[in-house]
Every structure is written in structure tokens, then in C-alpha cells.
């Protein structure tokens, strides 16, 4: 076993940001481990994806192209990955943490009898062995994992943990592999976009509202317009999702989404520990609340004590006039 293998995700025919980040870190780790950096492209129609992976620094890009790989299925994609793993024999396999990649990574690790770390925020090589750092318990516990020698490691890495690979081809090659006949026990019969869905985990700015807004009508009057003025998405605390004001998709926290945008604005959100679990790693936090003792202020970069009903419309107007 030697080197690193990165699973390449694609968005509209391009290499996804997370995969570029993994190629960047993958190169550093491959060097530290003294092995090659491989990339894995699994698709029915890879376009120029393999060539792109070469320019991102892969020594070898393994491709598995088959009509049966048009949609993600566990059997298809794990089956394909196992072919590449058998060929490349990596010590470390890297992928992202989307729902699809969690489904894939845990299944692959089980099949390979590998070590698994999910939601990894840092990776390093010490004494020739891989170490993974991951948060759990709503970010209240940061654990360092070691892995049993002689088994590969599957690490699913959080977005924005590493810098993107700077494109720099190393003369890597593309190696097509053949997908064996697999028992495909699930079939995707349809895919549709979520209506009006916002991918909160991708938003640079998130404006969230809580019970302090008073009622549902106020939430929609104040929060989406402010989010729009920031050019961001809108979220909600569990309390108002459970109260039926806002769909679950918008819930931030322990039982909703975990986000770490550049700016998180918490308006009328008290900052229950369940909510903090989902947003405490945001790079900047603005808290607006009429209770100066609200726990949200303890994590805030900027805190404004005041009535959200008064402050939010003013803030929306101010942003519109100053950001154009």
C-alpha cells in the first residue's frame, strides 16, 4: 500500500471545489507518505474530468466509465472504487462529506475493512502514519484519530478545510479500468431539484431567525429580505421549525444542518446549545437580540442588543443602500 487516492466529485462537468481541495492536501500527504497521488473518476460520461484531475496534480487518474454509473448508487460506486483501490493500493482514500459521499465512504471503508473518519477538518502524517482530526458533539469535542497499521484509511473531509490545488500538471497519466458485473440492488428512478431549496452549507452568508421574531409572518417579513440584502441564504432555529414557521430544510443546529459560512447573522436566536452546535464554527457571527444575557452573544463577533423588529428593517435598508 502506498500513496493517496482522491475521489473526484463533479459539478456540471467541472471538478467540484471539495475535490480540488482534496487534491491540494492529497499532494502534500502523498509526499509525506512517500507515495503517488491518484485520482478516481467514476461516471457514465466523464467529459474532460480525468484531464482536469491530471492538471490538478494527479500522478495517475483511474477512470471507471460505464452506463450503469449514470446515477450514484452504493453498489455501483463502491464497486467501481474497489477496482481502483485494488489497482492503486492507496493507504489513504479521500472524499467529501456530502450525503452521497457519507453513504459511499462508510460503505467502502466497511468493505475494505479500513479505518474511517468522517467530517475530518485536518489530516497529517506523523511517523509515517496518518492522523485525522474531527469534531463531534456539536463541535464541543475535537478528537485525534490514529489508525491500525496495515489497513487503509478512508477520510471524509469537510469543505474549506484545505486550500485548493493550484493547477500544475505533473505529466500524470490516465488509466481506464473496467467495471466488473455488479449486483445493483438499488435503482435511481428519478431525480428532481428541491423546490426553492437553498444549499445552506454552501452559502457565504446565512441569516437565521428564532423565536425572538414573534411569529411566522414576522420571520418572512424580516429574514429573507435581509438574507437577500447580504446576498445569502436564510436559516432558522429548531424552535421555529418545530413550531411550523419554516421548513426543516432551513434548520441550523444539532438536528438540522451544520454550517460555517463567512458570516452568520443570528436574529432573535437565543443561542441554545443545540443551535450553537450547528453554527459555532462560522468565521464571523453577528448576534441581534434584545436580551443582553442571551448565550448567542458568547460566540458573537459583533453583538447588537436591541429589538429585531426595529433593527432588521433598518439593517436591510442600510445594506441595500451601501452594497448597492
Amino acid at each position, binding site marked *: 500500500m502506498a500513496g493517496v487516492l482522491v475521489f473526484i466529485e463533479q459539478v456540471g462537468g467541472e471538478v467540484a471545489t471539495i475535490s480540488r481541495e482534496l487534491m491540494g492536501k492529497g499532494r502534500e500527504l502523498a509526499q509525506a507518505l512517500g507515495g503517488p497521488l491518484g485520482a478516481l473518476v467514476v461516471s457514465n460520461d466523464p467529459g474532460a474530468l480525468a484531464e482536469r484531475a491530471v492538471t490538478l496534480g494527479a500522478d495517475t487518474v483511474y477512470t471507471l466509465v460505464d452506463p450503469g454509473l449514470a446515477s450514484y448508487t452504493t453498489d455501483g460506486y463502491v464497486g467501481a472504487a474497489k477496482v481502483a483501490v485494488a489497482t492503486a493500493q492507496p493507504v489513504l482514500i479521500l472524499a467529501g462529506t456530502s450525503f452521497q459521499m457519507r453513504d459511499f465512504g462508510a460503505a467502502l471503508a466497511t468493505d475494505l475493512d479500513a479505518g474511517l473518519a468522517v467530517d475530518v477538518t485536518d489530516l497529517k502524517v506523523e511517523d509515517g502514519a496518518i492522523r485525522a482530526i474531527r469534531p463531534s458533539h456539536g463541535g464541543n469535542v475535537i478528537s485525534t484519530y490514529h489508525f491500525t497499521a496495515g489497513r487503509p484509511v478512508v477520510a471524509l473531509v469537510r469543505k474549506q478545510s484545505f486550500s485548493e490545488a493550484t493547477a500544475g500538471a505533473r505529466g500524470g497519466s490516465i488509466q481506464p479500468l473496467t467495471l466488473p458485473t455488479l449486483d445493483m440492488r438499488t435503482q435511481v428512478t428519478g431525480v428532481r*431539484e428541491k423546490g426553492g431549496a437553498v444549499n445552506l452549507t454552501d452559502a457565504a452568508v446565512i441569516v437565521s431567525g428564532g423565536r425572538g421574531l414573534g411569529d411566522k409572518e414576522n420571520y418572512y417579513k424580516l429574514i429573507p429580505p435581509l438574507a437577500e440584502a447580504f446576498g445569502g441564504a436564510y436559516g432558522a432555529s429548531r424552535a421555529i421549525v418545530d413550531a411550523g414557521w419554516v421548513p426543516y430544510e432551513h434548520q441550523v443546529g444539532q438536528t438540522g444542518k451544520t454550517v460555517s459560512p463567512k458570516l452568520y447573522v443570528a436574529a432573535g436566536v437565543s443561542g441554545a446549545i443545540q443551535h450553537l452546535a450547528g453554527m459555532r464554527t462560522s468565521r464571523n457571527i453577528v448576534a441581534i437580540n434584545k436580551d443582553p444575557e442571551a448565550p448567542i452573544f458568547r460566540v458573537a463577533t*459583533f453583538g447588537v442588543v436591541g429589538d429585531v423588529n426595529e433593527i432588521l428593517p433598518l439593517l436591510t435598508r442600510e445594506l441595500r443602500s451601501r452594497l448597492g
Partner: protein
Amino acid sequence: MHIVVCLKQVPRDNSVKINSDLSVNTDGIEKIINLFDEYAIEEGIAWNEKHGGKLTVLSLGTDSWVEQIRRALAMGASDSLLLSDPAFADLDTIAAARVVAAAINKLGDVDLIFCGRNSTDDESGAFAPALARALGWSQVTYVGKMLDLNPAARTLSAERHLETTIETVTATLPAVVSVIKDINSPRYPSLLKIKKVAKVDPPVWNAADLGLTGLSVATKIVNRVPPPPRPSGERIDGPDAAAKVKKLVDRLLESQII
């Protein structure tokens, strides 16, 4: 048909501390059924009511979890099973899934397993896929809607609710399905049912019962720390709301946050 629901006990919130042996200290925090598992229980009950047969709630834990198992029984599970052994104490997710798989194989007649999408303490979401692969079964994760479960055709169909899309999938049984919060509204058990199961003790299977020896893990936690504290924040003051708003936007622009 025989449906199994996997249940994990978790602390109600994550205001945990770290013990000197690196275990997580949840003392003083109320213990509850992992929220996503409650949705799994409800889904199991609904399909059990439709198709009949057995609905077993299964936990890999300790005696202190029995209260949660009883709650699942009061909600409507027909049977329960606790997997408990000192040898299970320090298992990682994949090893735990292998233990549960051994129990499912021993039960022998299970058609479908419902799990929550992840536990709210460990948060990895790895258990359901690991269980499916350990059993060699189909897996359908992040299900927001079960469209059909057909015992005769041995198939199910479901909607997987992903970040920006909804996939409709069909799968063959036996299968492992993990569910999200949107899928249903878990029922509250009635007082009568709570009383009825108050003294029920689940059967306990240990490592020997499952024929498991020399359980091995591929991961080891060698350090655990609390997160670094956030730098202390800045209070935006002003004579009135308008002044505070102006100052806030000034600071956001100066700091190049927007």
C-alpha cells in the same frame, strides 16, 4: 415481515466534558433516544401496522439504555433486544455495525432495518451504510419519504432527500434504510402503554451469544480536546437602533466580512 429499528441513547444536548481517559463525560445531561432514531421507530411502527409481523427495537449499549428501549416499546415496537458486553465498550462505528450485523443474522428472519441518519453525538452518519455492507444488504440512506414497501415483491421505494435534490429509488429487500427528520411525526406513547412496559426487560445478547471473539477496531482516539475558545466579541453600542445599525455595517465593511 420482521422490521428492526436501531436505537442509540444520546445526551439531550452536547454540553459534554472530556474525561482524563478521553471518554466523553455526559454526567448531569438527560439521556434520550437519538432524535433521528425516533423517526426510525415511528416509520417502523407505521409499516408494521400496515404489513403485520414483528417490530424489534435493537440497541447496542448498556443496562442504562433500557429506559429508552421501553419508550420505543411504549411507542409501539413489539419486541426488543439489547446487545451488551464489556467487549463492546470501545468499538468504533464499523465494528459496532459488525456486532449488530451478527445479531441480525442470528435473528435470521429480518427483512428491513430502519436507522436514524446519524446520532446527534457522534454525528458521522456511518452506521447505517456500515451495517448494510456488513450484512451484504441494500442500503437507502437519507430517506425523507417511504413511498412503498412490498413484502411480496421484496422491494421498497423511497425518496432520498439530498442537499439540493430529491432522488426516487427502488431497492430490493433485505435492506437498511436511514431516515431524516422530515419523514414523519413520531407519536407520543400513552401513559397506559408506558405503564404496561415499565417492567419489561429486553433480552440481552453478549459477544459469546453472537459467536464473536477478538473484535478488532481500525481506529483509535488518541487525543480529545474542547474547541479553542472564540475570540471575545465586540458589542455594537449606539444612542438608537439606527446608529447601531450604521456602526454594525461600518464594522462589517472595515473587516472585509461583506
